[in-house]
């Protein structure tokens, strides 16, 4: 299902009138998307109507209005991020707020860009703008990942919880330990290592990429495959059984590691979104103070 289909199927209530899950993107018939467009339109109008001497910038009356609106939006959007963490709110209100957060955040790009009047430099003002753009860009990544990964996750998991997936692997580990008993020392060590040291999760890069170079299970599998070539007939069955178990474990590992990777993709943007938001707040404060520090109320027509 594409993102578009996902959006279009997020209907509010079915024909039976039962309230179903509703995506934050379509909440209340795109109410906040409409508000977002209204804000963008108003900003553009304001920008066009104000014709200062020289290039447009943040110090004109329109610039001040856009700047106050932009700063207000930033503070409000941050406050939402704080509030969202408390689930004491009713679910419906949470969706409403998330929808507002997303669409007002997107509108902020236009408001703030027009506030700058496209005049940029190597200063704290442009720093604040760049940080804001990073926050919004990471937020957009977040939206995309929230639309994309839950479906992939469901497909990959097949109704299993993380705990269940781990239990499967633990079960295989137990079986492996029993099954590896008749194997030669070297292969048995590889299998034991596969049981004890196979990584699930780990560094941020491993979690995101799902790539685990030097995986102990892979190594054991290769070791068993190599040993199988010159094994005595009476031990063939034991090797085959370990091989099957390792194959099984590899498949289980792939599943949980893919799951971890999807989850990481859904989380990682927040590690940019949240910290840069706070850097942005600091830069925004410096920006406002520096402007007021030297030009109190010097609004140019």
């Amino acid at each position, binding site marked *: 299902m594409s993102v578009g289909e996902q959006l279009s199927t997020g209907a509010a209530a079915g024909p039976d009138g039962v309230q179903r899950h509703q995506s934050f993107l379509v909440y209340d018939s795109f109410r906040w998307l409409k508000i977002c467009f209204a804000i963008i339109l108003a900003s553009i109008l304001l920008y066009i109507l104000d014709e200062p*001497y*020289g*290039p447009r*910038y*943040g110090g004109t009356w329109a610039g001040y209005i856009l700047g106050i609106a932009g700063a207000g939006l930033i503070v409000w959007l941050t406050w939402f991020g704080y509030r969202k963490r408390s689930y004491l709110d009713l679910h419906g209100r949470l969706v409403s707020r998330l929808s507002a957060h997303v669409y007002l955040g997107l509108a902020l790009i236009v408001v703030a860009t027009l506030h700058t009047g496209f*005049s940029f*430099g*190597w*200063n*704290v003002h442009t*720093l604040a703008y760049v*940080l804001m753009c990073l926050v919004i860009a990471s937020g957009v990544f977040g939206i995309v990942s929230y639309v994309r990964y839950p479906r992939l996750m469901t497909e990959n998991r*097949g*109704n299993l919880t993380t*705990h*269940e997936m*781990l*239990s*499967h*692997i*633990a*079960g295989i*580990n*137990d*079986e492996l*330990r029993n099954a590896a008993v008749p194997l030669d020392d070297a292969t048995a060590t590889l299998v034991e290592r596969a049981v*004890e*040291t*196979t*990584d*699930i*999760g*780990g*560094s*941020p890069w491993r*979690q995101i990429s799902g790539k685990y170079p030097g995986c102990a299970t892979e190594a054991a599998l290769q070791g068993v495959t190599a040993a199988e070539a010159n094994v005595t007939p009476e031990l063939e069955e034991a090797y085959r*059984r370990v091989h*099957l178990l390792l194959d*099984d474990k590899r498949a289980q590992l792939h599943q949980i590691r893919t799951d971890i990777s999807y*989850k*990481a993709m859904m989380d990682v943007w927040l*590690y940019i979104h*949240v*910290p*840069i938001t*706070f*850097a942005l*707040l*600091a*830069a925004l*404060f*410096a920006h406002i*103070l*520096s402007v*007021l*520090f*030297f*030009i*109190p109320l010097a609004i140019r*027509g």
Partner: protein
Amino acid sequence: MDVEITTLTRRGAALMHRANRVSGDRVQFGRGTDNDVPLTDIRIGLSAMALLQQDGRLVVEKLGTTPLRVNGQAVETTTVAPGDKIDLGPYHIEIAEPPAGFDAALSVELTQPLGDALDRLRRHARIGLQASGLSKRSSAWVGAVVVALLFLVAPVVLYGAGFIAPWQKDEPSHVGPVAVAALSWNIGDISNTHRFFAPNCTSCHEKSFTSVSDNACLACHSTVANHVAAKSDIGPLRTRLADTGCVHCHEEHRGIRGTVIREDGFCLDCHSSLTDKAPKSAYRNVGGFPNGHPQFRATVVADAVAGKVERVELGGNPPPIDRPGLKFSHAAHLVKGGFPALNYKQMACADCHRAEPGGLGFQPVKYKENCQTCHEHDLVFEGTDLPWPKGQVPHGDDAGIVAAVWNFYAAKSLQGGGGAEPATFRRAAGAPAPGLQAPETAQAQISQKAEAALRNVIFDDKRGCGYCHYGTGPQGAFETAKMIPAAVATGERPHFIAPVLLQSRFLPQAQFDHSRHSAMLCGDCHQRRGAESQVPLAQLGQISLTAAVPEPLDIPGIDKCTGCHGGQKAVVRAASTCTTCHKFHRNEFGVMRENAAATH
């Protein structure tokens, strides 16, 4: 189908059996409670396996993802018979011979209970980014604190502690950490002329939370010119002008091109109703440009002798007349084809009108530079008596020329060429020595001779000064006959030539910049001159421009400008503001804030 399910549970060495009867077409195994045989291990799917009877044979079928092996082989569906061993996840199931009254019997045992394996696995796994050592909270703190320290605390502390010094003469600004911290607050590109002290914020920003004071500007721009004359009566506007700070019209940080805010509104605040606000000012109201701007007024010479100029409106018909006190005809000079007799090409404007060094206007036209090439004073009189072939008289010193001519005849008189006087005579006591003529007679004779030469040659209308100049007598006559004896009698220096007042700018209130219109032809704006340059020499007489009639002024009116220039927001005209043509700071009105330091 009736199936006997025997659940085996090991307690140490003991094995406990618990048998159940399950009936149905299909016996389902799984973790879910709706299964016929619930298997409570976490590793089993909600629905994991089904047992059914097909054609009298037992069949097992894999339902979910839980691995199903029959006798060690992974299967999806297969027939089973008593003695077969089934592995369903951690469970071991054995098919037994069914007792009487049952279609099938099987034993179920959890052979791989979750134990240490899962605990160890969970301890080893690090799932979730928060488990990998990333922390939103700490990186948020680091980011916010670093930004605040670098861009908030550092500039404020450096400014407050005086590390950002004002610019000092002979101390160039340095690019260093302090400059970087200071410039991090720069709200926009600093104008090019102020960039050399860009990091010295305190040069202009003397105090926090105040705008830049005039004093900061005047520290360097002390001689900036005033807008109106100090004594002119502009009523309450005087206070208003005094209260208007530099920053009202000059804004820094608005880009490399400069600080002047070229906004008509600033000027029109006063100038749109100047006749009400300052009725004693000679200026008319201006409502804007092009609409609302009055027709231009040129300054023309009304009376060169008295040095009187007047302001006349342009654009009317007939055009105003400029009377510079010179008999000059542009038409006679611009004649098509030039002057073959003088071997001179057709004259161009630039032959006489030389641009000022800045190119704004033109240098004054001067006889020596612009006229003499063609109009030499090869005025020959008494040629045979001169020791040199041509008698040239100097330009610009009429009394000197008269004196020279006088002296010439006086010398001739001394040489005895003065007239028919007796060769010898008796000398009475006290009388002058022989050889000296009686003063009365000689003086009269020299006067007569000199006057004739001056009138007929030097001041002559055809070949002398009168060709271009007016005399000081009535109707511009040269009254040499009357003035020379009078000068002799009184000893006062006579003036024979009427003063000339040649202006080089006719629109002194504006700053029309010729250099910025250099791509145009002179005749595009000065159309009368353009037309005159098309008149052939033969027809020159027909345009009846005798040298004695003053020429109409050929300065275009506002319509000529508005053909290309529009208002300040013009799109299909050159956008033009008040300051495109007019200067606010007028050098002729003295210094603007002479006592600025005392009053601000």
